[in-house]
């Protein structure tokens, strides 16, 4: 997902989780090689995702769980390039390829070639629809709906909402937005009075919100997709309007702003997004598949939510310019596979 476009600055990873057990009881996959095919690295979320991958897989390689777990990123976020990259990985003889795909459909040709060559393909975040591949999907729709559930709890009287969407034409944007609109339909006291595209970036969101604000009535809440909350807050501030309840997206600057407001005036909100560490979950799922485990083709990963109470803890574990993160261990993967 194209969270944040910028800030290559920090490669920080937060909230270290679950050091894996030192015992090498995984003899079955010790000669297997896994590759990560990644389509984009130009934002903090993707950087954190790659750092998490590196951290968890290098430990796994050291412990002899797998022989190799190399990460490959295409130079440009282009379908044709990633298709060529996957074909190169087939040639290099990897046993499994973990993919964060540039397109859900347009890579299917390359994915099917990989499957035909006996390679296990596991997609996550940006999933592929080829039937032979595994998918670790995120319930983006639920991520949108969750925001309305929170708003309904904290604002029983309802009010006007401003919706900040992501990048037009990307399915993640459609999904989250569909979830938000479903939530609004179920809670009729809320009404979306304006909608702008913030492209998951603070600066774009700020400009877009500043542009639409003069035409809007009083806003009670802002529903977002992540990466846009801080920009929205700045736009409201610059316009001299009261700052509504803005749902955040786990970015460090958003959490920091929230913390400042919380300390100053008891500002209340919640924050939800996907942990970049989902790449490590995909790694463990790939390892399990290679190990011969019976894994359903479609898995769902929970999203990472920050609430009023654990804000300080999550913020402390998030490096500047990064995203709140969680890394997964083999046990977590087993739980997800079992559908718990």
């Amino acid at each position, binding site marked *: 997902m194209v969270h944040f476009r910028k800030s290559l600055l920090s490669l920080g990873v937060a909230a270290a989780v679950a050091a894996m057990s030192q015992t090498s009881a995984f003899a079955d996959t010790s000669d297997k090689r896994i590759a990560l095919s990644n389509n984009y690295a130009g934002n903090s979320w993707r950087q954190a995702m790659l750092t998490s991958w590196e951290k968890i897989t290098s430990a796994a390689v050291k412990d002899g769980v797998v022989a190799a777990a190399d990460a490959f990123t295409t*130079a440009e976020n282009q379908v044709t390039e990633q298709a060529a990259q996957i074909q*190169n990985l087939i040639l290099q003889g990897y046993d499994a390829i973990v993919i964060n795909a540039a397109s859900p459909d347009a890579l299917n040709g390359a994915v099917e070639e990989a499957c035909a060559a006996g390679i296990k393909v596991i997609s996550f975040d940006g999933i592929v629809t080829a039937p032979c591949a595994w998918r670790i999907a995120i319930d983006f729709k639920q991520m949108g709906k969750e925001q309305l559930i929170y708003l309904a709890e904290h604002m029983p009287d309802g009010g006007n909402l401003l919706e900040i969407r992501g990048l037009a034409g990307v399915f993640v944007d459609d999904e989250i937005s569909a979830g938000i609109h479903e939530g609004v339909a179920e809670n009729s006291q809320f009404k979306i009075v304006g909608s702008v595209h913030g492209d998951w970036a603070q600066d774009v969101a700020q400009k877009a919100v500043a542009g639409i604000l003069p035409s809007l009535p009083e806003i009670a809440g802002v529903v977002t997709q992540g990466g846009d909350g801080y920009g929205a807050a700045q736009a409201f501030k610059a316009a001299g309007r009261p700052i509504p309840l803005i749902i955040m997206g786990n970015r460090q600057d958003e959490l920091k702003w929230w913390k400042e407001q919380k300390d100053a005036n008891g500002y209340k909100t919640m924050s939800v997004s996907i942990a970049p560490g989902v790449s490590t979950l995909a790694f463990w799922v790939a390892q399990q598949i290679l190990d011969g485990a019976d894994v359903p083709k479609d898995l769902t990963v929970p999203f990472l939510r920050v609430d009023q109470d654990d804000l300080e803890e999550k913020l402390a574990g998030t490096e500047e310019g990064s995203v709140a993160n969680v890394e997964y261990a083999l046990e977590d993967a087993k739980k997800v596979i079992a559908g718990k």
Partner: protein
Amino acid sequence: MTFVPSARLLRSLLPAFSLTVILIAIFYLQPRAMSYFGLNLLLNLALPIAFATLAQMCVIAVNDLDLGIGAFVGFVACVGATWLNESPVLGVAVLALCILAYAALGALIHLRNLPSIVVTLGMSFFWLGLALLVLPTPGGKAPEWVRAVMTFKAPGMPTTIYASAMVAILVHFALMRSAYGAVVRGVGGNPRSVERAGWSILKAKMSMYALAGFFGVLSGISLIGLTTSADANIALRYTLLSIAGVILGGGEFVGGRISPVGAVLGAMTLTLAASFLSFLRISPDWQIGAQGAILIIVLALRVLINRAGKK
């Protein structure tokens, strides 16, 4: 007397030479690639790029530049994965219209004396917009026959190699050996004298743009045959790749100097260069730069040959 190869011969051999060097380097790094299966994987994405490069070459032949070809190929891919699959008649009609639109573009650029860069850059947004209208979210399905053609396993060598060779030779004879081909290239070299000789520049430009549109359509259709479905943004990179392919293959921006065989070889070299860099495990941050470095090396070789030829 010893045989001294002419600069012209050396120049025309350069694209084949660069391709061979890259191929040998790949075989060295990844011996697995030295097989039918390996070559097929390495080269099958080169075919759509080769078509896009030929399209670009047609435009460059008449001293213009097409900055919209990538978006156009993307649009064709979207049409191919939707209308062409669901109602073939409509699909073919739309694709024919696309070729006509390209011819009209050539006429517009010539009659109004507009800079082709501006017009085609504008058109690139038009094509992208249309592609998003046809296919708002990635998906669609390539027609079965396209898929069958593109995954056909020819005996001996991968189909891509046969197809590229055939297309390169066909275009070579059409543009480099035929009488009208000479006229068309003359439009790029010296339009005034071509006009004085009684040929219509308008017609020449329109036919070259139409040919560019035709190759653009082939590029888009062959692309979805490989990917099985489309995405409006699928081929945006083709714009720059195609220009690089033409230049790498021995063409020049001005003067109607082109080489169809070289352009196809150039497209393959570019495709292989990307694989080569990924086999080398160069970090993605450096890959674009490294690709540029390969281009610069080849072009520098060409300048050296040109200089030697002048002496």
